């Protein structure tokens, strides 16, 4: 018998099918298709306010603008204020924006090891924890939020959901099956592996800047 068969049959006899299994009950098929909700904590906050608060707690910085067309200006402002390079790579969804008008040199491609700034969108964002939800895909290069030292993420205000559960619900209804990777990102990369001293920029970005757009 194969390892797989051996392991599964050991599980069955350990659970003495008909005893422990039935005592605990609950149909597997049913759970997998209806994915029942678990108890939730109090969620009576304002979603945008909570999201902003949690982003700051996670050491992200924030900006709010009224329309997509203002993204290059907001990006340029952030980069100059922080003395960061003004050439960047971004996702195809920002192709049409007038980057050069804001003195930013933008390339539409996935990031390589020495790109300094990456601009991404986000599928949605979770208010409860201040988390960006990025789905990998043809138009959503994963390395752009990972390799550059600065990650700038554009979040649409109407895509801020309350919980991770709501994010899953949205993905189930809009996307169907999961892409290769769903990345939940909450603030810059960090470690405390040396004497519990918190240091940003362990392997991923040193800083994450979130731009919330109204429309």
């Amino acid at each position, binding site marked *: 018998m194969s390892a797989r068969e051996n392991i599964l049959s050991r599980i069955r006899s350990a659970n003495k099918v008909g005893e422990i299994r039935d005592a605990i009950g609950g149909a597997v098929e049913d759970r997998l298709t209806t994915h029942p909700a678990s108890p939730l904590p109090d969620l009576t906050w304002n979603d945008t306010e909570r999201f902003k608060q949690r982003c700051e707690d996670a050491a992200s910085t924030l900006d709010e603008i009224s329309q997509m067309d203002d993204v290059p200006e907001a990006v340029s402002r952030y980069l100059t204020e922080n003395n960061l390079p003004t050439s960047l790579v971004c996702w195809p969804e920002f192709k049409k924006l007038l980057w050069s008008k804001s003195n930013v040199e933008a390339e539409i491609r996935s990031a390589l090891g020495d790109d300094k700034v990456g601009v991404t969108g986000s599928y949605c964002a979770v208010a409860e924890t201040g988390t960006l939800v990025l789905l990998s895909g043809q138009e959503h290069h994963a390395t752009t939020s990972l390799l550059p030292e600065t990650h700038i993420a554009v979040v649409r205000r109407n895509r801020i959901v309350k919980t991770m559960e709501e994010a899953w619900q949205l993905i189930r209804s809009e996307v169907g099956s999961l892409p290769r990777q769903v*990345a939940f990102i909450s603030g810059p990369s960090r470690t405390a592996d040396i004497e519990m001293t918190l240091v940003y920029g362990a392997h991923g970005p040193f800083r994450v800047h979130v731009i919330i757009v109204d429309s």
Partner: protein
Amino acid sequence: MEITSQDFKAVSGAKLKDEKLQKALFQAKDGFVVSRAKVIKDLDNFETIRQAASDVRDHCLAHLDEYLEAWESQAKASGTVVHWAESYEELNALVVKIAQDNQVKKIIKSKSMVGEETGLNKYVEGHGIEVKETDLGEYIIQQAGEYPSHIIAPATHKSKEDVSDLFAEKHQRPRLEDAEKLTHEAREILRPHFLDADMGITGANFMIAETGSTVIVTNEGNGRMTTTMPRVHVAISSIEKCIPTLDDFALMMRLLPRSATGQVISNYVSMTTGPKREGDHDGPEEFHVIILDVGRTRVLGSELRDALRCIRCGACMNHCPVYQNVGGHAYGWVYPGPIGSVLTPAYNGIENAIDLPNAATLCNQCGVVCPVKIPLPDLMRKLREKQYEKDLKSKTEKWSIKLWAYLAVRPKLYSIVTRVMARAGKMLGGSSGQIKTMIFAAQEWTKHRDLPTPRGRTFRDIYVNNKKVNKR
């Protein structure tokens, strides 16, 4: 990994005298404990959520075969290659085979406790393939040729000075003294490896049956890189990591980071489902998952089964007074602290970890903080009973218990013996009221402290006397 838990007594004695280690442990002691306490307050119904998580884990274990089969069929549908392994050797050999089939020369690795169990790095290197640990803590101990002393913070036994010396020697660069600079030096050294490694190995905190996904939870971003940059990705996991749905995962995520590091969420939660899709610019061409069962099914069928609910948060060790004083290495295997005291004997045989179930005061700090409500002290007590049944206790201990049992069922004799002992004890202490040295097994006690003498009367005498007085 080779097990050295038999030496617990001797090693923990030495660790207590190791000043450097004591300093490092002292420094680490409150960090996780304090931040956890703060951040669980953020959930108004923490206990309800904790109970729900415990119930989900129980449900899942009771139907583990069905959930694993469901997971497997979803995983395969998204292009994942699924392997099963019944021994450490089998898992290691599978990894090497995948590497050789793909002409892999260099592997980058994100932290995996299953990999520590199987001794994966040594095995893979033995086949001429380079392995680079990338989690900062794991990188430090790989450079030092050691193994993790904590499941979340693997290098917590090392001081900053240790790391400074180590990096200066290994990197052949000027010695740095600042944690930030040291971290960034490691980043600089490791970055090229992320870019040119052929294969990435990660663990998996969870496998989601609903979607056939694996998830890793990290703060540094090394895990996300390991799953994204190389052309082959292998995730190694074990059967009990399977949970039913994405919603169940959301539930676990309210508890895991809070219990582990005191964060509301870890920085990077990366859920992988299959290899690179058509049109994707990044991601591996091949994605393999190896599911291990060593010891797990045995524990599932035993009275220790609750231990399989563990989500590896480390809270039980952070809160354990024994761990806080001796550190993780004293436990002699992959998992330290209370959960290690249960899993080490459960997976490796109780005769190979004889002292571990006794390395606890049964104060139940671990049971109180465990996010999935594993009754750790009860499990350690069960293991102690087993030691007794298997005749593994020391002669002195067995004789003492037998003697006590004999007396306990003979009240008259018990009363006489205890009276004599109480008086003798008082005499021994003399005017100081303290006994400085004792003999036989009791010398262990007086080696490090004095024993206050009995007052000369037994509890029973005082009780009877008080009753009389109260009647009057």
